[in-house]
């Protein structure tokens, strides 16, 4: 009786402690992965180049439909069309549909691309890494690497981190262009907004600073997604079913982390910026 009570108590108070334990393990994993960057860049050049190609193009079934870059472009294109449809209707209620280009210039770099492309990258690049590393862990390939005196962390994790950070910029640029094209095609070609009006408001309110800030968010997103996804893959357990669960858990965590990190970066960059001037 007393034993059962104590076990119950240990269980109840153990939950936050285990959570803390897990957080600590993640933090030390992330710290190590980042600290190995010079070694990974210097020693594993071939693997690095292979991974850069893989991040952009993906492998397996996803490569058939164009790889992560095309998938991200496709998704932001459709998100741009949605934005075009929705803002056109809202602005029409206020008799302001001429301002469609203004909405596109502001919303695409500040909200649409970071949120949608961030989620698309977590889904394509990130969960692909979890599946790969999880399969390697379960098939004991990672242990085999260690036995052969190859440090698995820089060889598998840090190389992926560097590859992700290099590849995200072109992917993100494509995604942003996709968002603009979707938006413009919808409002100009489908809803008959005059192209000159659209371009005028778009060019007036488009700021290179917003685009730069979006890329700052992109690099933050890349680091967070790849660290989280490689962690869950690297520590997967429980056979093939465990790999599937690890991928699911990694996607859930990284979607939350992507939104949080974007909010933090956006607040840090935009909060006191006075580059946005309408009233002079």
């Amino acid at each position, binding site marked *: 009786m007393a034993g059962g009570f104590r076990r119950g108590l240990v269980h109840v108070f153990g939950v936050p402690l285990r959570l803390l334990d897990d957080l600590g393990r993640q933090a030390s994993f992330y710290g190590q992965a980042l600290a190995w960057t010079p070694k990974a860049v210097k020693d594993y050049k071939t693997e690095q180049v292979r991974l850069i190609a893989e991040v952009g193009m993906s492998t397996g*079934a996803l490569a058939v439909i164009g790889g992560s870059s095309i998938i991200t472009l496709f998704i932001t294109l459709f998100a741009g069309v949605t934005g075009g449809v929705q803002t056109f209707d809202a602005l029409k209620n206020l008799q302001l549909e001429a301002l469609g280009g203004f909405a596109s210039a502001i919303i695409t770099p500040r909200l649409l691309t970071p949120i949608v492309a961030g989620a698309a990258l977590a*889904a394509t690049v990130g969960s692909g890494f979890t599946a790969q590393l999880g*399969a390697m862990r379960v098939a004991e390939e990672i242990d085999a690497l260690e036995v052969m005196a190859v440090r698995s962390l820089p060889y598998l994790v840090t190389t992926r981190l560097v590859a992700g950070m290099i590849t995200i910029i072109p992917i993100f640029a494509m995604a942003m262009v996709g968002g603009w094209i979707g938006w413009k095609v919808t409002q100009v070609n489908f809803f008959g907004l005059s192209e000159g009006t659209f371009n005028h408001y778009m060019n007036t309110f488009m700021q290179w600073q917003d685009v730069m800030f979006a890329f700052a968010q992109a690099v933050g997103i890349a680091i967070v997604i790849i660290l989280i996804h490689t962690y869950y893959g690297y520590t997967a357990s429980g056979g*093939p*079913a465990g790999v599937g669960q690890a*991928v699911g858990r990694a*996607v859930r965590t990284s*979607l939350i982390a992507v939104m949080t990190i974007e909010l933090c970066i956006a607040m840090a960059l935009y909060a006191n910026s006075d580059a946005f001037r*309408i009233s002079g």
Partner: protein
Amino acid sequence: MAMISLTRIATPIGNFFAFTLDTFVAVFRRPFQWREFIQQTWFVASVSLGPAILLGIPFVALVTFQFNLILSELGAIDLSGSGSGLATITQIGPVATTFIIAGASSTAICADIGARRIREELDAMMVLGIDPIQRLVVPRMLATALCAFLLNGVMILIGLTGGFFFAVFLQEASPGQYVDSMKLLVGFADLVHGELRAVAFGVVGALVGCYRGMTCAGGPRGVGNAVNETVVYTFLALFPLNILLTQVPYSLGIVGGNH
């Protein structure tokens, strides 16, 4: 070469539609699996609710923050309620529900069904004369649809309250004006429109998860890849679907334009 890659794309898509048709037929076959339905609703809700709340708060804060920057530049910060209401009910709620359905619900469903597939439980069911589509897929599809409906409600609630706190306490909008202007651009029809879209997203997400789980290859790479592809395909399916379901009611004049 091009032919081969075309078949590689077209065959799974065709199979998926056949699978969807089978599922819709099986919905009406009795007996309905109530126990599985309730368990799955609980399961989907338990994997989705936490991520939904944690994802919803920064998502909404991000949008409200940017929108309010523009409004305060125009000196119209008191209108922030209308922007918050419009953005949350028409797009943020359904899109955030999309993220949760793709990222949390359908991945969990795919991992579960995939594990059953590689342990040959599905084959065992078929040998026993039990149809896995009726027994496993139909309850999961309906459970996810129900959860998507409820999750969209949670998202809207988070959106409106989060937007309120962000606008009033951090960006100095007036609370009364916020609440008052909330109804300026959206109405009841938009709410129903958003909820119906969320239900459609739930159905599609669950179907993709179940299909990819039931067709996953063996070995440790098989289930992992299946879950990875589930997230990607769900995103790929839901964004175009969102446009279709957003635009069609506007074109038909069911929602919008009546404020």
